[in-house]
Protein backbone atom coordinates (compact mmCIF):
# COMPACT_ATOMS: atom_id res chain seq x y z
CA UNK A 1 0.00 0.00 0.00
CA UNK A 2 2.81 2.38 0.89
CA UNK A 3 4.42 2.02 -2.47
CA UNK A 4 1.43 3.63 -4.07
CA UNK A 5 2.18 6.87 -2.28
CA UNK A 6 5.53 6.98 -4.07
CA UNK A 7 3.69 7.22 -7.32
CA UNK A 8 2.24 10.54 -6.39
CA UNK A 9 3.77 12.98 -8.90
CA UNK A 10 6.36 15.09 -7.16
CA UNK A 11 5.68 17.92 -9.64
CA UNK A 12 2.70 18.83 -7.53
CA UNK A 13 5.19 20.05 -4.94
CA UNK A 14 6.65 23.37 -6.09
CA UNK A 15 8.33 26.46 -4.80
CA UNK A 16 4.96 27.62 -3.50
CA UNK A 17 4.93 24.63 -1.23
CA UNK A 18 5.20 26.71 1.95
CA UNK A 19 2.42 29.04 0.96
CA UNK A 20 0.13 26.35 -0.28
CA UNK A 21 1.33 23.64 2.17
CA UNK A 22 -1.85 23.29 4.12
CA UNK A 23 -3.98 23.14 1.01
CA UNK A 24 -1.76 20.53 -0.56
CA UNK A 25 -1.66 18.40 2.60
CA UNK A 26 -5.40 18.33 2.53
CA UNK A 27 -5.38 17.21 -1.11
CA UNK A 28 -2.86 14.45 -0.27
CA UNK A 29 -4.90 13.31 2.65
CA UNK A 30 -7.87 13.08 0.34
CA UNK A 31 -5.89 11.02 -2.17
CA UNK A 32 -4.68 8.70 0.58
CA UNK A 33 -8.17 8.34 1.85
CA UNK A 34 -9.33 7.25 -1.56
CA UNK A 35 -6.46 4.79 -1.81
CA UNK A 36 -6.75 3.68 1.76
CA UNK A 37 -10.43 3.02 1.54
CA UNK A 38 -9.41 -0.36 3.03
CA UNK A 39 -10.19 -0.29 6.64
CA UNK A 40 -7.95 -2.28 8.96
CA UNK A 41 -10.67 -4.87 8.99
CA UNK A 42 -10.67 -5.02 5.19
CA UNK A 43 -6.91 -5.28 5.21
CA UNK A 44 -7.08 -8.15 7.71
CA UNK A 45 -9.67 -10.05 5.77
CA UNK A 46 -8.24 -9.60 2.27
CA UNK A 47 -4.51 -9.60 2.99
CA UNK A 48 -2.43 -11.70 0.57
CA UNK A 49 -1.70 -14.09 3.44
CA UNK A 50 -3.76 -16.04 5.90
CA UNK A 51 -4.32 -14.78 9.45
CA UNK A 52 -5.77 -16.62 12.33
CA UNK A 53 -5.84 -16.25 16.08
CA UNK A 54 -6.21 -19.22 18.37
CA UNK A 55 -6.84 -19.75 22.03
CA UNK A 56 -4.03 -21.36 23.98
CA UNK A 57 -5.73 -24.74 23.54
CA UNK A 58 -5.65 -24.25 19.77
CA UNK A 59 -9.30 -23.37 19.28
CA UNK A 60 -9.62 -20.96 16.40
CA UNK A 61 -11.00 -17.62 17.57
CA UNK A 62 -10.57 -15.58 14.45
CA UNK A 63 -9.60 -16.36 10.83
CA UNK A 64 -9.40 -14.16 7.80
CA UNK A 65 -11.25 -14.59 4.50
CA UNK A 66 -8.07 -15.23 2.53
CA UNK A 67 -7.27 -18.37 4.51
CA UNK A 68 -10.90 -19.53 4.53
CA UNK A 69 -10.90 -19.08 0.74
CA UNK A 70 -7.68 -21.10 0.36
CA UNK A 71 -9.07 -23.89 2.47
CA UNK A 72 -12.59 -23.75 1.01
CA UNK A 73 -14.13 -23.48 4.50
CA UNK A 74 -16.94 -21.39 5.86
CA UNK A 75 -16.28 -19.18 8.88
CA UNK A 76 -19.12 -20.68 10.92
CA UNK A 77 -17.64 -24.15 10.52
CA UNK A 78 -14.28 -23.02 11.78
CA UNK A 79 -14.46 -20.37 14.47
CA UNK A 80 -14.83 -21.90 17.91
CA UNK A 81 -15.35 -25.27 16.28
CA UNK A 82 -11.98 -26.22 14.99
CA UNK A 83 -8.50 -26.07 16.35
CA UNK A 84 -5.47 -25.00 14.37
CA UNK A 85 -4.26 -28.57 14.18
CA UNK A 86 -7.54 -29.57 12.54
CA UNK A 87 -6.53 -27.55 9.50
CA UNK A 88 -3.40 -29.63 9.04
CA UNK A 89 -2.75 -32.90 7.24
CA UNK A 90 -2.05 -35.98 9.33
CA UNK A 91 1.66 -35.47 9.00
CA UNK A 92 1.20 -31.77 9.73
CA UNK A 93 -0.78 -32.61 12.90
CA UNK A 94 2.00 -34.87 14.09
CA UNK A 95 4.65 -32.28 13.43
CA UNK A 96 2.53 -29.61 15.10
CA UNK A 97 2.03 -31.80 18.16
CA UNK A 98 5.62 -32.89 18.55
CA UNK A 99 7.59 -29.84 17.42
CA UNK A 100 5.59 -26.78 16.53
CA UNK A 101 3.46 -26.37 19.64
CA UNK A 102 6.19 -27.19 22.19
CA UNK A 103 8.66 -24.86 20.48
CA UNK A 104 6.12 -22.10 20.32
CA UNK A 105 5.36 -22.46 24.02
CA UNK A 106 9.03 -22.38 24.80
CA UNK A 107 10.11 -19.48 22.57
CA UNK A 108 6.92 -17.49 22.32
CA UNK A 109 7.29 -17.21 18.56
CA UNK A 110 8.14 -19.29 15.50
CA UNK A 111 8.85 -18.18 11.94
CA UNK A 112 8.57 -19.77 8.53
CA UNK A 113 7.75 -23.33 9.58
CA UNK A 114 6.73 -25.47 6.60
CA UNK A 115 3.48 -27.36 7.18
CA UNK A 116 0.74 -28.85 5.03
CA UNK A 117 -2.92 -27.94 5.35
CA UNK A 118 -5.86 -29.88 3.96
CA UNK A 119 -8.47 -28.15 1.85
CA UNK A 120 -12.16 -28.92 1.90
CA UNK A 121 -11.75 -30.49 -1.54
CA UNK A 122 -9.27 -33.01 -0.10
CA UNK A 123 -6.23 -31.28 -1.59
CA UNK A 124 -3.04 -30.36 0.16
CA UNK A 125 -1.83 -26.82 0.61
CA UNK A 126 1.83 -26.40 1.44
CA UNK A 127 2.24 -23.36 3.68
CA UNK A 128 4.82 -21.47 5.68
CA UNK A 129 3.55 -20.66 9.14
CA UNK A 130 4.70 -18.02 11.62
CA UNK A 131 3.14 -17.74 15.09
CA UNK A 132 3.53 -15.33 17.98
CA UNK A 133 2.04 -15.68 21.48
CA UNK A 134 0.33 -12.53 22.68
CA UNK A 135 0.84 -11.89 26.35
CA UNK A 136 -1.31 -9.94 28.77
CA UNK A 137 -0.18 -7.04 30.98
CA UNK A 138 0.95 -9.50 33.63
CA UNK A 139 2.98 -11.39 31.04
CA UNK A 140 0.55 -14.27 30.99
CA UNK A 141 -0.07 -15.83 27.55
CA UNK A 142 -3.39 -14.88 26.11
CA UNK A 143 -3.62 -16.16 22.59
CA UNK A 144 -1.65 -17.14 19.51
CA UNK A 145 -1.49 -15.01 16.38
CA UNK A 146 -0.56 -16.87 13.25
CA UNK A 147 0.19 -15.89 9.67
CA UNK A 148 0.03 -18.43 6.87
CA UNK A 149 1.80 -18.01 3.51
CA UNK A 150 0.90 -20.09 0.47
CA UNK A 151 4.07 -22.05 -0.37
CA UNK A 152 2.64 -23.99 -3.33
CA UNK A 153 4.90 -22.30 -5.86
CA UNK A 154 7.86 -22.55 -3.60
CA UNK A 155 7.07 -26.23 -2.94
CA UNK A 156 6.68 -26.91 -6.63
CA UNK A 157 10.02 -25.20 -7.24
CA UNK A 158 11.64 -27.25 -4.51
CA UNK A 159 10.14 -30.42 -5.90
CA UNK A 160 11.35 -29.49 -9.34
CA UNK A 161 14.82 -28.99 -7.86
CA UNK A 162 14.56 -32.35 -6.17
CA UNK A 163 13.36 -33.97 -9.40
CA UNK A 164 16.23 -32.41 -11.34
CA UNK A 165 18.66 -33.50 -8.70
CA UNK A 166 17.22 -36.99 -8.84
CA UNK A 167 17.53 -36.98 -12.62
CA UNK A 168 21.10 -35.79 -12.39
CA UNK A 169 21.78 -38.54 -9.85
CA UNK A 170 20.21 -41.06 -12.20
CA UNK A 171 22.21 -39.80 -15.19
CA UNK A 172 25.36 -39.97 -13.10
CA UNK A 173 24.49 -43.51 -12.04
CA UNK A 174 23.82 -44.47 -15.66
CA UNK A 175 27.11 -42.94 -16.77
CA UNK A 176 28.82 -44.80 -13.96
CA UNK A 177 27.18 -48.02 -15.08
CA UNK A 178 28.17 -47.42 -18.71
CA UNK A 179 31.70 -46.72 -17.57
CA UNK A 180 31.71 -49.95 -15.55
CA UNK A 181 30.39 -51.88 -18.55
CA UNK A 182 33.04 -50.36 -20.81
CA UNK A 183 35.63 -51.28 -18.21
CA UNK A 184 34.29 -54.86 -18.11
CA UNK A 185 34.38 -55.03 -21.93
CA UNK A 186 37.91 -53.70 -21.94
CA UNK A 187 38.95 -56.27 -19.34
CA UNK A 188 37.24 -58.98 -21.40
CA UNK A 189 39.08 -57.86 -24.54
CA UNK A 190 42.32 -57.81 -22.58
CA UNK A 191 41.65 -61.37 -21.33
CA UNK A 192 40.91 -62.49 -24.91
CA UNK A 193 44.10 -60.82 -26.12
CA UNK A 194 46.15 -62.54 -23.40
CA UNK A 195 44.50 -65.85 -24.26
CA UNK A 196 45.29 -65.38 -27.95
CA UNK A 197 48.88 -64.52 -27.05
CA UNK A 198 49.12 -67.57 -24.81
CA UNK A 199 47.65 -69.73 -27.59
CA UNK A 200 50.11 -68.31 -30.07
CA UNK A 201 53.00 -68.88 -27.69
CA UNK A 202 51.81 -72.44 -27.11
CA UNK A 203 51.57 -73.03 -30.85
CA UNK A 204 55.03 -71.55 -31.35
CA UNK A 205 56.35 -73.87 -28.62
CA UNK A 206 54.67 -76.86 -30.29
CA UNK A 207 56.13 -75.87 -33.67
CA UNK A 208 59.56 -75.41 -32.11
CA UNK A 209 59.32 -78.86 -30.51
CA UNK A 210 58.30 -80.39 -33.84
CA UNK A 211 61.03 -78.46 -35.63
CA UNK A 212 63.58 -80.01 -33.25
CA UNK A 213 62.32 -83.42 -34.32
CA UNK A 214 63.32 -82.45 -37.87
CA UNK A 215 66.77 -81.08 -37.21
CA UNK A 216 69.10 -81.61 -34.24
CA UNK A 217 69.24 -78.90 -31.61
CA UNK A 218 73.02 -78.88 -31.82
CA UNK A 219 75.67 -80.85 -33.66
CA UNK A 220 77.73 -83.42 -31.76
CA UNK A 221 81.46 -82.90 -31.49
CA UNK A 222 83.27 -85.16 -34.00
CA UNK A 223 86.93 -86.00 -33.30
CA UNK A 224 89.20 -84.57 -35.96
CA UNK A 225 86.37 -82.83 -37.76
CA UNK A 226 85.07 -79.32 -37.51
CA UNK A 227 81.39 -78.80 -38.30
CA UNK A 228 79.07 -75.85 -38.81
CA UNK A 229 75.46 -75.50 -39.82
CA UNK A 230 72.91 -72.89 -40.82
CA UNK A 231 69.19 -73.48 -41.02
CA UNK A 232 66.79 -70.91 -42.42
CA UNK A 233 63.03 -71.39 -42.52
CA UNK A 234 61.10 -69.18 -44.89
CA UNK A 235 58.57 -68.48 -42.14
CA UNK A 236 58.99 -68.64 -38.36
CA UNK A 237 55.59 -70.31 -37.96
CA UNK A 238 56.09 -72.76 -40.82
CA UNK A 239 57.86 -76.02 -40.33
CA UNK A 240 60.75 -76.41 -42.68
CA UNK A 241 60.93 -78.98 -45.44
CA UNK A 242 64.73 -79.09 -45.22
CA UNK A 243 66.53 -81.47 -42.92
CA UNK A 244 70.04 -82.50 -41.85
CA UNK A 245 71.64 -84.67 -39.22
CA UNK A 246 75.04 -85.82 -37.97
CA UNK A 247 75.44 -88.79 -35.67
CA UNK A 248 77.91 -91.45 -34.58
CA UNK A 249 77.80 -94.96 -36.10
CA UNK A 250 80.64 -96.58 -34.17
CA UNK A 251 84.09 -95.83 -32.74
CA UNK A 252 85.49 -94.66 -36.06
CA UNK A 253 82.61 -93.67 -38.26
CA UNK A 254 80.10 -90.87 -38.32
CA UNK A 255 77.10 -90.52 -40.60
CA UNK A 256 75.55 -87.30 -41.86
CA UNK A 257 72.83 -86.34 -44.26
CA UNK A 258 71.10 -83.26 -45.64
CA UNK A 259 68.04 -83.02 -47.86
CA UNK A 260 64.89 -81.31 -48.97
CA UNK A 261 61.36 -82.69 -48.96
CA UNK A 262 58.89 -81.72 -51.70
CA UNK A 263 56.05 -79.45 -50.68
CA UNK A 264 55.61 -77.23 -47.67
CA UNK A 265 53.79 -77.06 -44.35
CA UNK A 266 52.74 -79.77 -41.90
CA UNK A 267 52.42 -82.52 -44.55
CA UNK A 268 55.97 -81.83 -45.71
CA UNK A 269 57.10 -81.85 -42.08
CA UNK A 270 55.57 -85.30 -41.62
CA UNK A 271 57.56 -86.55 -44.64
CA UNK A 272 60.67 -84.86 -43.24
CA UNK A 273 60.26 -86.65 -39.93
CA UNK A 274 59.74 -90.03 -41.59
CA UNK A 275 62.76 -89.37 -43.80
CA UNK A 276 65.07 -88.37 -40.97
CA UNK A 277 64.40 -91.38 -38.78
CA UNK A 278 64.40 -93.81 -41.70
CA UNK A 279 67.84 -92.57 -42.76
CA UNK A 280 69.14 -92.78 -39.17
CA UNK A 281 67.94 -96.35 -38.78
CA UNK A 282 69.12 -97.41 -42.24
CA UNK A 283 72.61 -95.92 -41.73
CA UNK A 284 72.99 -97.79 -38.45
CA UNK A 285 72.05 -101.10 -40.09
CA UNK A 286 74.18 -100.73 -43.23
CA UNK A 287 76.83 -98.02 -43.47
CA UNK A 288 76.82 -97.99 -47.27
CA UNK A 289 75.23 -94.55 -48.09
CA UNK A 290 73.48 -95.72 -51.27
CA UNK A 291 71.81 -98.51 -49.30
CA UNK A 292 70.35 -95.98 -46.85
CA UNK A 293 68.85 -94.06 -49.78
CA UNK A 294 67.46 -97.23 -51.32
CA UNK A 295 65.75 -98.05 -48.03
CA UNK A 296 64.36 -94.53 -47.80
CA UNK A 297 63.12 -94.73 -51.40
CA UNK A 298 61.23 -97.94 -50.65
CA UNK A 299 59.74 -96.48 -47.44
CA UNK A 300 58.56 -93.21 -49.01
CA UNK A 301 57.23 -94.85 -52.17
CA UNK A 302 55.32 -97.46 -50.21
CA UNK A 303 53.92 -94.83 -47.85
CA UNK A 304 52.92 -92.13 -50.35
CA UNK A 305 53.23 -92.88 -54.08
CA UNK A 306 51.28 -96.13 -53.82
CA UNK A 307 48.36 -94.04 -52.49
CA UNK A 308 48.50 -91.72 -55.51
CA UNK A 309 50.00 -88.93 -53.40
CA UNK A 310 53.65 -89.03 -54.44
CA UNK A 311 55.95 -87.34 -51.95
CA UNK A 312 59.64 -87.43 -52.33
CA UNK A 313 62.83 -85.83 -51.25
CA UNK A 314 66.30 -85.13 -52.47
CA UNK A 315 69.11 -86.07 -50.12
CA UNK A 316 72.82 -86.56 -49.71
CA UNK A 317 73.88 -89.21 -47.23
CA UNK A 318 77.50 -89.62 -46.23
CA UNK A 319 79.88 -91.52 -43.97
CA UNK A 320 83.01 -89.92 -42.50
CA UNK A 321 85.89 -92.02 -41.17
CA UNK A 322 89.59 -91.50 -40.56
CA UNK A 323 91.64 -92.03 -43.74
CA UNK A 324 94.87 -94.01 -44.01
CA UNK A 325 96.80 -90.72 -44.06
CA UNK A 326 96.97 -89.41 -40.51
CA UNK A 327 94.75 -86.39 -39.91
CA UNK A 328 92.74 -86.97 -43.09
CA UNK A 329 89.11 -87.94 -43.24
CA UNK A 330 87.56 -90.09 -45.94
CA UNK A 331 84.08 -89.06 -47.03
CA UNK A 332 81.87 -91.48 -48.89
CA UNK A 333 78.52 -90.17 -49.95
CA UNK A 334 75.49 -90.97 -52.10
CA UNK A 335 73.07 -88.53 -53.67
CA UNK A 336 69.45 -88.92 -54.59
CA UNK A 337 68.49 -86.06 -56.88
CA UNK A 338 70.38 -83.56 -54.74
CA UNK A 339 72.64 -80.73 -55.85
CA UNK A 340 76.32 -81.80 -55.65
CA UNK A 341 78.47 -81.16 -52.60
CA UNK A 342 81.02 -78.38 -52.90
CA UNK A 343 84.66 -78.85 -51.88
CA UNK A 344 86.80 -75.92 -50.71
CA UNK A 345 90.35 -77.20 -50.71
CA UNK A 346 93.15 -75.97 -48.50
CA UNK A 347 95.02 -74.76 -51.57
CA UNK A 348 92.08 -72.54 -52.58
CA UNK A 349 90.80 -74.82 -55.28
CA UNK A 350 87.02 -75.21 -55.38
CA UNK A 351 85.12 -78.06 -57.03
CA UNK A 352 81.79 -79.78 -56.98
CA UNK A 353 81.87 -83.42 -55.99
CA UNK A 354 79.70 -84.71 -58.84
CA UNK A 355 76.99 -87.22 -58.07
CA UNK A 356 75.13 -87.18 -61.40
CA UNK A 357 72.05 -89.21 -62.07
CA UNK A 358 71.11 -89.93 -58.51
CA UNK A 359 67.33 -89.99 -58.58
CA UNK A 360 64.62 -88.36 -56.50
CA UNK A 361 64.01 -90.46 -53.40
CA UNK A 362 60.51 -91.91 -53.10
CA UNK A 363 59.20 -90.92 -56.54
CA UNK A 364 59.64 -94.26 -58.28
CA UNK A 365 59.42 -97.87 -57.13
CA UNK A 366 63.08 -98.42 -57.88
CA UNK A 367 65.68 -95.72 -58.02
CA UNK A 368 69.36 -95.46 -58.82
CA UNK A 369 71.68 -93.49 -56.56
CA UNK A 370 75.12 -92.20 -57.33
CA UNK A 371 78.02 -92.66 -54.95
CA UNK A 372 81.15 -90.53 -54.75
CA UNK A 373 84.19 -90.50 -52.51
CA UNK A 374 86.74 -87.91 -51.49
CA UNK A 375 89.30 -87.30 -48.81
CA UNK A 376 89.40 -84.20 -46.71
CA UNK A 377 92.96 -83.18 -45.86
CA UNK A 378 93.76 -80.55 -43.24
CA UNK A 379 92.28 -77.21 -44.37
CA UNK A 380 89.71 -78.88 -46.67
CA UNK A 381 86.02 -78.15 -46.19
CA UNK A 382 83.00 -79.83 -47.74
CA UNK A 383 79.74 -77.93 -48.04
CA UNK A 384 76.28 -79.51 -48.36
CA UNK A 385 73.35 -77.25 -49.18
CA UNK A 386 69.72 -77.37 -50.25
CA UNK A 387 68.38 -75.67 -53.34
CA UNK A 388 67.07 -72.75 -51.30
CA UNK A 389 70.59 -71.44 -51.88
CA UNK A 390 71.01 -72.15 -55.57
CA UNK A 391 67.36 -71.47 -56.45
CA UNK A 392 67.23 -68.10 -54.67
CA UNK A 393 65.91 -65.46 -57.05
CA UNK A 394 68.43 -62.84 -58.03
CA UNK A 395 66.31 -61.02 -60.60
CA UNK A 396 62.75 -60.00 -61.32
CA UNK A 397 61.92 -63.19 -63.22
CA UNK A 398 61.07 -66.37 -61.38
CA UNK A 399 63.77 -68.20 -63.27
CA UNK A 400 66.53 -65.61 -62.61
CA UNK A 401 68.20 -67.88 -60.10
CA UNK A 402 71.49 -67.68 -58.24
CA UNK A 403 72.64 -71.02 -59.64
CA UNK A 404 75.49 -73.45 -59.09
CA UNK A 405 78.01 -71.52 -61.19
CA UNK A 406 77.60 -68.41 -59.03
CA UNK A 407 77.87 -70.52 -55.89
CA UNK A 408 81.10 -72.06 -57.11
CA UNK A 409 82.52 -68.63 -57.93
CA UNK A 410 81.52 -67.37 -54.48
CA UNK A 411 83.23 -70.38 -52.85
CA UNK A 412 86.33 -69.92 -54.99
CA UNK A 413 86.72 -66.39 -53.60
CA UNK A 414 86.27 -67.80 -50.12
CA UNK A 415 88.61 -70.80 -50.23
CA UNK A 416 90.47 -71.84 -48.26
CA UNK A 417 87.95 -71.52 -45.44
CA UNK A 418 87.04 -73.58 -42.40
CA UNK A 419 83.44 -74.78 -41.92
CA UNK A 420 82.36 -71.96 -39.61
CA UNK A 421 83.99 -69.32 -41.80
CA UNK A 422 82.28 -70.75 -44.88
CA UNK A 423 78.89 -70.93 -43.16
CA UNK A 424 79.24 -67.35 -41.91
CA UNK A 425 80.02 -66.12 -45.41
CA UNK A 426 77.12 -68.06 -46.93
CA UNK A 427 74.72 -66.82 -44.23
CA UNK A 428 75.67 -63.30 -45.27
CA UNK A 429 75.06 -64.26 -48.89
CA UNK A 430 71.58 -65.61 -48.03
CA UNK A 431 70.76 -62.39 -46.17
CA UNK A 432 71.79 -60.40 -49.24
CA UNK A 433 69.14 -62.25 -51.30
CA UNK A 434 66.44 -60.54 -49.20
CA UNK A 435 63.01 -61.39 -50.55
CA UNK A 436 64.65 -63.54 -53.22
CA UNK A 437 65.20 -66.20 -50.56
CA UNK A 438 61.66 -67.56 -50.42
CA UNK A 439 62.43 -71.18 -49.62
CA UNK A 440 63.85 -73.02 -46.65
CA UNK A 441 67.61 -73.39 -46.75
CA UNK A 442 69.91 -75.77 -44.91
CA UNK A 443 73.71 -75.56 -45.00
CA UNK A 444 76.06 -78.12 -43.46
CA UNK A 445 79.85 -77.84 -43.63
CA UNK A 446 82.38 -80.47 -42.53
CA UNK A 447 86.10 -79.85 -42.56
CA UNK A 448 89.43 -80.99 -41.24
CA UNK A 449 91.07 -78.16 -39.29
CA UNK A 450 94.08 -76.70 -41.07
CA UNK A 451 97.45 -77.65 -39.65
CA UNK A 452 98.51 -75.28 -36.89
CA UNK A 453 95.04 -73.86 -36.52
CA UNK A 454 93.14 -73.93 -33.29
CA UNK A 455 91.18 -77.15 -33.25
CA UNK A 456 87.94 -77.49 -31.38
CA UNK A 457 88.19 -79.27 -28.06
CA UNK A 458 86.81 -82.77 -28.32
CA UNK A 459 85.67 -85.19 -25.63
CA UNK A 460 88.58 -87.58 -26.12
CA UNK A 461 91.12 -84.81 -26.44
CA UNK A 462 92.14 -85.45 -30.07
Amino acid sequence: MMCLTGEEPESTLGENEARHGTEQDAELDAAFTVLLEDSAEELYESAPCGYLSTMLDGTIAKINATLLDWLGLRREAVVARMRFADLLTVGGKLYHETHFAPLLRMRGELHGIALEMTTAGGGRLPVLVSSVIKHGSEGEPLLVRTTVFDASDRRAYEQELLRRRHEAEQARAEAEQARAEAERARAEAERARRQAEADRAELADALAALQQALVPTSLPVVPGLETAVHYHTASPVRLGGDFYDLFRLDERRWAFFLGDVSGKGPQAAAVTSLTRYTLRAAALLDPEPATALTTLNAVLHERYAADGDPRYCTAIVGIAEPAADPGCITIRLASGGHPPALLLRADGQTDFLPTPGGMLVGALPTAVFTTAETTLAPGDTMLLYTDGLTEARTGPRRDSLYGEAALRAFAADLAPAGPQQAINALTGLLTSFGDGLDDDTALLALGVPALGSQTRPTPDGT
Partner: protein
Amino acid sequence: MFPLQITRRDSATGPVLYVTGDLDHHYAPVLRDQVERLDVKAGQCLVIDLAGLEFCDSSGITALLAARQFAQAAGADFALAAVPDNTLRILTIVGLHRIFTIHPGSNAV
Protein backbone atom coordinates in the same frame (compact mmCIF):
# COMPACT_ATOMS: atom_id res chain seq x y z
CA MET B 1 53.19 -65.08 -62.76
CA PHE B 2 51.96 -66.75 -65.92
CA PRO B 3 48.61 -68.51 -65.53
CA LEU B 4 48.77 -72.11 -66.60
CA GLN B 5 47.01 -72.95 -69.85
CA ILE B 6 46.55 -76.46 -71.11
CA THR B 7 45.27 -77.31 -74.61
CA ARG B 8 44.74 -80.83 -75.84
CA ARG B 9 45.12 -82.35 -79.26
CA ASP B 10 44.55 -85.97 -80.15
CA SER B 11 47.19 -87.31 -82.49
CA ALA B 12 47.38 -90.71 -84.15
CA THR B 13 49.63 -91.98 -81.36
CA GLY B 14 47.58 -90.62 -78.47
CA PRO B 15 46.67 -87.39 -76.64
CA VAL B 16 49.06 -84.44 -76.51
CA LEU B 17 48.77 -81.77 -73.80
CA TYR B 18 50.33 -78.40 -74.58
CA VAL B 19 51.27 -76.73 -71.31
CA THR B 20 52.05 -73.01 -71.20
CA GLY B 21 52.67 -70.75 -68.21
CA ASP B 22 53.76 -71.67 -64.70
CA LEU B 23 53.70 -75.21 -63.41
CA ASP B 24 54.05 -74.33 -59.75
CA HIS B 25 52.53 -75.03 -56.37
CA HIS B 26 49.43 -73.10 -57.41
CA TYR B 27 48.80 -74.56 -60.88
CA ALA B 28 50.27 -78.07 -60.73
CA PRO B 29 46.96 -79.54 -59.42
CA VAL B 30 45.28 -78.24 -62.61
CA LEU B 31 47.59 -80.37 -64.76
CA ARG B 32 47.05 -83.41 -62.54
CA ASP B 33 43.31 -82.91 -62.82
CA GLN B 34 43.43 -82.57 -66.63
CA VAL B 35 45.56 -85.69 -66.98
CA GLU B 36 43.21 -87.78 -64.89
CA ARG B 37 40.31 -86.90 -67.21
CA LEU B 38 42.16 -88.21 -70.28
CA ASP B 39 41.11 -91.36 -72.05
CA VAL B 40 44.45 -93.00 -72.73
CA LYS B 41 44.39 -96.45 -74.30
CA ALA B 42 46.91 -99.22 -73.93
CA GLY B 43 49.61 -98.95 -76.57
CA GLN B 44 49.11 -95.20 -77.03
CA CYS B 45 51.60 -92.56 -75.89
CA LEU B 46 50.62 -89.60 -73.70
CA VAL B 47 52.79 -86.61 -74.62
CA ILE B 48 53.13 -83.45 -72.57
CA ASP B 49 54.60 -80.63 -74.65
CA LEU B 50 56.44 -78.10 -72.47
CA ALA B 51 57.52 -75.63 -75.21
CA GLY B 52 55.44 -72.89 -73.56
CA LEU B 53 56.49 -73.69 -69.99
CA GLU B 54 57.69 -70.60 -68.14
CA PHE B 55 58.47 -72.03 -64.73
CA CYS B 56 58.46 -75.42 -63.05
CA ASP B 57 59.03 -76.14 -59.36
CA SER B 58 58.91 -79.36 -57.35
CA SER B 59 55.09 -79.39 -57.48
CA GLY B 60 55.34 -79.33 -61.27
CA ILE B 61 57.81 -82.22 -61.21
CA THR B 62 55.35 -84.12 -59.01
CA ALA B 63 52.53 -83.47 -61.52
CA LEU B 64 54.71 -84.78 -64.38
CA LEU B 65 55.56 -87.88 -62.35
CA ALA B 66 51.86 -88.41 -61.62
CA ALA B 67 51.07 -88.10 -65.36
CA ARG B 68 53.70 -90.71 -66.14
CA GLN B 69 52.25 -93.01 -63.50
CA PHE B 70 48.74 -92.46 -64.92
CA ALA B 71 49.85 -93.41 -68.47
CA GLN B 72 51.70 -96.47 -67.30
CA ALA B 73 48.68 -97.62 -65.30
CA ALA B 74 46.69 -97.50 -68.56
CA GLY B 75 49.36 -99.56 -70.35
CA ALA B 76 50.44 -96.52 -72.34
CA ASP B 77 53.79 -94.85 -72.87
CA PHE B 78 54.63 -91.37 -71.61
CA ALA B 79 56.90 -88.70 -73.06
CA LEU B 80 57.85 -85.07 -72.53
CA ALA B 81 58.44 -82.86 -75.57
CA ALA B 82 60.37 -79.61 -75.96
CA VAL B 83 61.53 -79.41 -72.33
CA PRO B 84 62.96 -75.91 -71.64
CA ASP B 85 66.62 -75.81 -70.59
CA ASN B 86 66.04 -74.76 -66.99
CA THR B 87 63.48 -77.51 -66.43
CA LEU B 88 65.76 -80.03 -68.14
CA ARG B 89 68.53 -78.95 -65.76
CA ILE B 90 66.29 -79.67 -62.75
CA LEU B 91 65.23 -83.01 -64.22
CA THR B 92 68.89 -83.86 -64.66
CA ILE B 93 69.81 -82.91 -61.09
CA VAL B 94 67.09 -85.12 -59.69
CA GLY B 95 67.88 -87.97 -62.06
CA LEU B 96 64.51 -87.94 -63.79
CA HIS B 97 65.95 -87.29 -67.26
CA ARG B 98 66.69 -91.00 -67.23
CA ILE B 99 63.10 -91.84 -66.31
CA PHE B 100 61.21 -89.59 -68.68
CA THR B 101 61.31 -90.18 -72.41
CA ILE B 102 62.21 -86.73 -73.69
CA HIS B 103 61.60 -85.62 -77.29
CA PRO B 104 63.85 -82.71 -78.20
CA GLY B 105 61.46 -80.92 -80.56
CA SER B 106 57.96 -79.61 -80.14
CA ASN B 107 54.95 -81.27 -81.72
CA ALA B 108 53.10 -77.97 -81.54
CA VAL B 109 53.36 -77.06 -85.20
